[in-house]
């Protein structure tokens, strides 16, 4: 309110002076907040002292003592609570990344189907979206786990698919290549080959564009891509992998790559649920591309597939990425529902730890902080990517 302050010496009373009011509100709100925090903490200290629950993290080094059903890093119950926590974190990351990957593709195709000029296809996509958007994820997970995956045939009567690949209520067992002793050498060569060929492709193409000389960038990079891994193959004595075939032994299949029903149900549930939202994101993004763009592309004689991949999608991405980020974060956070269907991720392990170690607050703070960190890091990385997309496109 800087409007026409009267120049008289008559001072504004403090209760109408905006500066004073602002200052007052600031002070009052900070005092209130500090007091609230002080009050809560003093209560906490009183209760923890009374009941003997010190706020320390020493228990993280104690042996956990409880089993974890699946883990991507070595774990057994004699290892520490800290280790168990890391297992939970990797489990969360694995299921989130898998879910994000599949949800993006499924969502993309459902979004396209929704926009299809074929009435029936579009309606089926709409039914998929409406079904998933209007039911709770937890119920969906229960349906997938208890209604579908646990009701698969028992392990002795597994469904056998070519591969061999066995599907039963104990999970999906896949034949899977595993590295032999010389395997890492081959993998090193393979990654080096890919990296070098990509760099060669970029550098040579750049030179071609700048100088107009033919640099044969495509044949050169393709040759690199093949030759380097072949050298690696020879260095690995021609046997970088062995094939791990699942075999029915005792109660379960042994060997192969095992996807537990819990993991499968969680991944499928998270994927279909999030895909319904992602489909809407893509649909909105594609609709946001101006009609003239498509018409111009068509006028240039581009076939429909190229109109989509060269004109529509690159422009839609700009609109799509911010809401896509928030869907990815939602999926990651929603993976915490896994504890109800027996997949032990971060939150589930946190709860077990609270129970077995008897330390509610420290564990809880760790779990919250970890989720917060995952969210911030993910959105940070994707925001950087987003900025690049926006910049390049304009």
């Amino acid at each position, binding site marked *: 309110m800087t409007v026409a302050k009267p120049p008289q010496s008559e001072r504004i009373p403090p209760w109408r002076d905006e500066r004073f009011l602002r200052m007052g509100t600031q002070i009052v709100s900070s005092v209130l907040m500090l007091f609230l925090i002080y009050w809560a903490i003093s209560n906490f200290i*009183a*209760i923890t002292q*009374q*009941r*003997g*629950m010190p706020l320390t993290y020493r228990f993280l080094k104690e042996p956990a*003592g*409880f*089993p*974890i*059903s699946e883990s991507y890093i070595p774990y*057994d*119950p*004699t290892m520490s609570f800290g280790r168990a926590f890391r297992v939970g974190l990797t489990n969360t990351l694995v299921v989130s990344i898998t879910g994000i990957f599949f949800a993006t593709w499924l969502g993309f195709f459902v979004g396209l189907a929704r926009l299809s000029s074929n009435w029936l296809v579009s309606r089926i996509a709409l039914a998929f979206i409406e079904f998933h958007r209007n039911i709770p994820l937890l119920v969906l997970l229960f349906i997938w786990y*208890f209604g579908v995956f*646990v*009701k698969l045939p*028992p392990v002795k009567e597994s469904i056998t698919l070519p591969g061999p690949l066995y599907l039963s*209520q*104990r999970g999906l067992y896949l034949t899977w290549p595993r590295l032999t002793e010389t395997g890492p050498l081959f993998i090193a060569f393979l990654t080096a080959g890919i990296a070098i060929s990509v760099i060669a492709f970029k550098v040579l193409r750049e030179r071609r564009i700048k100088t107009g000389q033919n640099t044969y960038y495509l044949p050169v990079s393709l040759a690199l891509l093949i030759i380097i891994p072949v050298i690696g193959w020879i260095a690995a004595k021609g046997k970088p992998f062995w094939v791990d075939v699942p075999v029915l*032994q*005792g*109660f*379960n299949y*042994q060997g192969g790559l095992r996807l537990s*029903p*819990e993991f499968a149900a969680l991944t499928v549930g998270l994927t279909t649920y999030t895909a319904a939202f992602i489909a809407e994101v893509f649909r909105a993004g594609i609709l946001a591309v101006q009609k003239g763009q498509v018409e111009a592309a068509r006028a240039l004689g581009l076939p429909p597939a190229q109109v989509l991949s060269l004109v529509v999608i690159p422009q839609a991405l700009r609109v799509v990425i911010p809401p896509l980020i928030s869907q990815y974060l939602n999926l990651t956070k929603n993976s915490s529902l896994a*504890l*109800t*269907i*027996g997949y*032990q991720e971060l939150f*589930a392990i946190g*709860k*077990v730890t*609270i*129970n*077995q170690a*008897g330390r*509610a607050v420290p564990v809880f703070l760790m779990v919250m902080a970890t989720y917060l960190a995952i969210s911030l890091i993910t959105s940070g990385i994707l925001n950087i990517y987003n900025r690049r997309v926006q910049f390049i496109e304009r």
Partner: protein
Amino acid sequence: MKKSILVLSGLVIASLLLASCAPQPAGEVAPQKIVETVVVTVEVPGETVTVKPQGYGTIAARVRERGKVVCGVHKELLGFGYLDANGRNIGFDIDLCRAVAAAVLGDAEAIEAVPITAADRGPVLQTGEVDLVTRNMTWTSKRDAEWGNFTWIMFYDGQGFLVRADSGIKTLQDMNGASICVTTGTTTEKNLATAFADANLAYNAVTFEETSAVYGAYEQGRCDVATSDKSQLAAVRAGFSDPNAHEILDITISKEPLTPAVPAGDDQWFDIVKTVMWGMIAAEEYGITSANVAEMKASSDANIRMLLGTEGDWGYTTLGLEADALANVIEQIGNYGEVYDRYFGENGLAFYLPRGMNNLWKNGGLIYAPPIK
């Protein structure tokens, strides 16, 4: 439209304020701060004066004010804590809670059963959210140190294994490589890990938080084996459509003394609950049942008259109870044996489970209570 949104938000804020001022549905007492719970014994020459700690008596006062005993219970475990078709909480553990209500408030119905998960048992005791936890809980030294006070062992149990009869599993060694369903956050989970590690066997744990999910998954064949306290396994087996298709192995890998527990810091409440448990055991010893409690009040046995409150004081004045508190318990709930048989007897509501260790000490079991006098 603008206006009505405004009016709506105004009203919402008003109702918010109202709600925050309105009395709590479950009547509460003013928050009392407990600073110290140490019993201070002042030595005065010639006599000892016991100064009661500050937490003393708070829970009983709260229970009377509220008119209800709040118990943390199971709601889906046949025999111990479950619902009948009318949605009423029943079960062995629930009856223990009702017994405390009968003693303190004179009404076995004056309970509030809060369903809690296995993982909630520690926190609800630590925060004092419930007055009593009767939820199939094993007493361990660590839990006693960290969670609250465990009162008296009311059910002796041990961890066993439930398998399908046609699975061919007979011993622990047979289970090598099996998928085993287990509840997380329990002693069971840790015992399983220890037993298999000691025997150098591999297994594949399938863990759930909800007991019902554990057995649901086992029943459908997700696991080869389910493990828990044997009584719980018996409960689950009895619940299956064909109980004979499943068997409980003759292996016990742990001691599981199931014990009601109370929050730490109130010795009076701790004593009340213990005494109620003892009263039920003693009543069975003396042959007092819910049917004959009235005539027993005039029994020739002084011990019985003492227990039923017709003469003498078994400690009720100090505990702040009525003389007939234990008589009420027996009348409304019954003695220990009656409660046991109500759910686990041959014609029990839940399933038949021979008393075994849970017989009275006189009959070769472990159930024993200090004298009520």
